[in-house]
């Protein structure tokens, strides 16, 4: 067998002849040299047209982009948070109003899902980098730290000293949530049909505010700002079947890193669960209806199944959980089923709107249609009855 020749000399010679350490990338210079290419790329932040019949809200538009699906990690929080990012226009006053949003590194705000007058819970959010710290006004001991970078939520109960890590399945990492949103919104701004209407000044919550309605073929946002400082203090977004109000908005508030720690505090019990935000099915929704009627409604379906209804009922449901004296495993299983139920509504994938008529209907009533919707690309509707059976129904045969 022939012994292989030593070619170290050739390696050295080729390295000497070819190697180059001079070719250092300089993206900043490339951007300066290629402004049109940069413009072309950033303009693509606008999502592609959707097959949905109803207009998409900004939240859903962002969801269309896989990279920003991570925004869904915070489920409700982020849906509202997106309302912080309105569109811009050539109006200098409006530009002044939105500028703090684009410059912000951190943000603090309160969120109300649904109508403000219905006294639903207030969600308080603090945002820094990829992390969001969320608390709820009606569940004082509950704190959630959402890490969009790793797709994890650390859920803490300070009363029970319990902690749960929730892994959000299938989400890409998002190192800086605000930056992603800035890019998405920047793309939307360029839409030729984007319009801004000056709403003038109004008294809202005892404060004199100046308002703008920013409309886009797929979204509408109203932003209210302090006329003296031009800082936005209230943002309203109506999308699909959910209204989100962000108020008491403050930007660049100094915050301690420890508030966003994903470490479980000492003395807490710990569990780990997984949550597929995008995999909720009709079966998950039906199972949630059964649980809500059976466990929390004394055999009757809830008054509403919208996210805001769920949020309002959450404290009572948490109390009921305790009364049921479930094992940790049973509690977790029930909780996960309810998550699936909520996610089906939150990330509703059907055509048009869903309809709920279950208020006051008893579980088992086979004659009463309690929920119907049109699945994507379907000519017929799915109708769920009080006995939780499901039928395909033609549009003309839908319940009145």
């Amino acid at each position, binding site marked *: 067998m022939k012994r292989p020749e030593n070619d170290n000399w050739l390696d050295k010679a080729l390295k000497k002849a070819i190697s180059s350490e001079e070719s250092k990338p300089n993206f900043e210079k*490339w951007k300066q040299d290629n402004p049109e290419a940069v413009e072309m790329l950033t303009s693509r932040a606008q999502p592609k047209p959707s097959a949905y019949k109803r207009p998409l809200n900004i939240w859903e538009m962002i969801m269309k982009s896989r990279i920003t699906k991570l925004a869904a990690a915070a489920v409700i929080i982020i849906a509202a948070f997106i309302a912080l990012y309105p569109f811009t226009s050539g109006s200098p006053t409006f530009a002044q109003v939105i500028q703090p949003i684009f410059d912000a590194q951190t943000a603090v705000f309160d969120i109300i899902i649904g109508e403000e007058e219905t006294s639903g819970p207030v969600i308080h959010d603090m945002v820094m*980098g990829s992390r969001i710290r969320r608390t709820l006004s009606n569940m004082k001991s509950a704190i959630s730290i959402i890490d969009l970078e790793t797709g994890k939520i650390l859920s803490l109960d300070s009363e029970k000293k319990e902690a749960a890590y929730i892994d959000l399945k299938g989400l890409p990492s998002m190192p800086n949530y605000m930056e992603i949103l800035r890019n998405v919104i920047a793309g939307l701004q360029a839409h030729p049909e984007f319009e801004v209407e000056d709403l003038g000044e109004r008294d809202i919550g005892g404060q004199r505010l100046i308002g703008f309605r920013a409309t886009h073929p797929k979204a509408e946002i109203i932003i209210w700002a302090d006329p003296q400082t031009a800082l936005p203090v209230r943002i309203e977004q109506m999308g699909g079947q959910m209204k989100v109000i962000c108020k008491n908005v403050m930007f660049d508030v100094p915050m301690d890193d420890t508030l966003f720690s994903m470490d479980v505090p000492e003395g807490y019990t710990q569990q780990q669960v997984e949550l597929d935000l995008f995999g909720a099915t009709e079966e998950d929704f039906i199972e949630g209806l059964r649980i809500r009627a059976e466990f929390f409604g004394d055999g009757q379906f809830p008054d509403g199944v919208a996210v805001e209804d769920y949020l309002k009922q959450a404290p009572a449901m948490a109390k009921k959980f305790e009364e049921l004296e479930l094992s940790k495993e049973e509690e977790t299983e029930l909780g996960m089923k309810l998550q699936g139920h909520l996610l089906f509504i939150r990330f509703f994938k059907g055509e048009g709107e869903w309809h709920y008529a279950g208020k006051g209907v008893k579980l088992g009533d086979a004659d009463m249609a309690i929920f119907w919707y049109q699945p994507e690309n379907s000519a017929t509707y799915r109708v769920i009855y009080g006995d939780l059976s499901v039928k395909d129904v033609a549009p003309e045969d839908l319940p009145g």
Partner: protein
Amino acid sequence: MEIQTQELPDEQLAEAAQNGHLKSFGALYQRYYSSMVALAYSLLADRDLAEDAAQESFMVACRDLPKLKSKYKFAAWLAGICRNIAKQMLRIKGKKVLLSVEQPSESRDEQEHCWDALHQAVWKLREAERELIVLHYFNGFSRTQISQVLDISPQALNGRLIRAKRKIAQYLKQNGFTGDDYETP
């Protein structure tokens, strides 16, 4: 607290860039700029032109990103763009570009002749082998990165590298050069 964008895999960055995320495109630029220069250099044999080709490749990539179907193959797709641009440049300037490689000056000394011969040996290789040799010796790229850019498996890369080096050594030997000629102090 943050994961640097640079640490994300190509497919995530490419997808983000397709959705208008400039920073992700910047991360891809940082990751592949030098290898595109090397790739272009393997065709053009001119470092300045190779830099121009690499810059233009990213401009075209920026424009054509929506056409990229397999985000896992961003590097190979970019390399295809880069090859096309380098070949266009070659058609325009090719004769001038290759002049120094193929026609060494008579006035050069022996040492220069042996390095010229090495360049000629490399540039006489088949294109695929030449690309590999240049990428391998250009700037310390990892084998994984070279595999991605050339869209070949690491195993195929090893085999091709050995064959290419054998051809270079053979060419040098036929032209009267040995390892001793390249053992410079």
